[in-house]
């Protein structure tokens, strides 16, 4: 069963066993505006929780993407290379990276959907 949680920096992580998908929230895509580019990491790279794994650019802003939990990148969403707007269209469905989790402890510190919604009112 997949658990969905959010970080303070507006990434979401959908954890299923020891694998996870990571993307950005509805709030994040809305603040950015039309996404023009997603800077994807290399498959096989490892990042700790909180570390920057990539970046996402719109016309008026650019944001780092930070790991909500620690892991190794197993896949990047290549569709975003030619169609970065997929992130705007469905931010919760269109994941950015998939990881194999190396340390799930941070997952407990993340916000569930309700808490996240409250946090940026």
């Amino acid at each position, binding site marked *: 069963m997949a658990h969905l949680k959010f970080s303070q920096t507006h990434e979401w992580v959908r954890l299923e066993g020891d694998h996870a998908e990571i993307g950005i929230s509805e709030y994040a895509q809305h603040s950015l505006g039309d996404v023009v580019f997603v*800077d994807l990491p290399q498959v096989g790279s490892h990042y700790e929780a909180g570390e920057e794994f990539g970046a996402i*650019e719109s*016309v*008026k802003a*650019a944001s780092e993407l930070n790991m909500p939990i620690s892991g190794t990148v197993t896949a990047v969403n290549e569709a975003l290379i030619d169609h970065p707007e997929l992130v705007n269209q469905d931010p919760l469905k269109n994941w950015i990276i998939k990881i194999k989790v190396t340390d799930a402890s941070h997952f407990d510190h993340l916000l569930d959907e309700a808490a996240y919604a409250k946090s940026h009112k």
Partner: protein
Amino acid sequence: MNHKYLPHTDADIAGMLETLRLRSLDDLFADVPEKVRLKSAYDIPPALSESQLRTHLGQSGGRQLVSFRGFGAYDHERPAHIDALSSRQEFLTSYTPYQPEVSQGTLQYIFEFQSVVCELTGLDVANASMYDGATAAAEAMMMAVILTNHPRVLASGALLPHVLEVLKTYAHFRGVELVVVPTKDGVIDTHELSELSKDPYAALIAAYPNRFGIVEDLSHLAEQTHQNQALLIAYCDLVALTVFKTPGSAGADIACGEAQSLGLPLSFGGPYVGYLATIAKYVRKMPGRICGMTTDNRGQRAYVLTLQAREQHIRRDKANSNICSNQSLMALQATIYAVTLGRQGLIEVAKRSIGAMHYLAERLVATGLFKKTYDAPFGYEVALTYRRKIDALNAKLTEKGYLGGYPLDERTAVYYAGEKMTKTLIDAFVAAVKEADHEI
């Protein structure tokens, strides 16, 4: 009495102060501490009229010389329409094109400049220009460091000295180890390069042509650096690229340099204009402004600054660079020059410069006073070794109205000849050299 740049009459000021419910202009500065308020006028001279200024500045110039010196600043034939066009107020007085609807002029010529640079370098993308060649090289260096994550860069000892100095300064303050690769026989010492390549590095910056006017083979350098997972940055003169193999086709990752040689006046060193170009995959790591084509809401083809998310006003402390401007007007002038000379003309400029230089070198060597310092193939600059002290020769030549070769050491100098140099002018210079040598 009013000043011609300050239109306010006393009545204007009184009326405006009344709207603000203030009594005097002084009231506007209530928040400025008394301690720092100026109590007296600036210590600058009283105002001049325009004719007085013209006279004064007419007497404040340098002495114009017939020049056989390049070394980073190249004299070329400059068509009159460049100034006529670039001094149009719409180009001259406008600001950075942040409101693209009223800046299509600027944006379009930047697009054309970028196109010209790509054509000449053979690379995929170019930016809207940089301050000058040396700072463009420094920015290219940082770009490579960021891309590879190796804070170590190798730079050819045959780059122009002022380019090396700027690279050193930027490297020092940005925590990059800059290693100068020694030269041998006027080119990069390949053995030394191999040794230095054993430790990881971000890039090799090679000069093309180099400070001795020599044209080195970039393809081998590209191969070698790529084998070491490093980038090749080629510091090139754009005029040379019309006839010599381009950095793009040689496999360089970045080309940068000084575009002053595209018809900009010598100007005692500035304003000039730097350029930077790279391969497509590095476009988002390129510093500086970039202009792209798009459409407007009326379906028209138009231009706009793009990929701005990389830049300082958005990324702030995460920007690729702090650069906030380019040398727009100079890029315009360089573009007008390049398109005026065009496909054939720029090749002619290069060929004739090379021809003039080879003729001059031949004649100087034939006097018996000089030897070619290096054997390697040269373009429109060459290093020659004089039999006596070059400073003494140059001093005499200056008395005669010439600017001789740039001294590299006590006896060696680098000479330049451009397409303006005719046989007559060159012969006269050679005669002057013989005379000067005699007089020392």
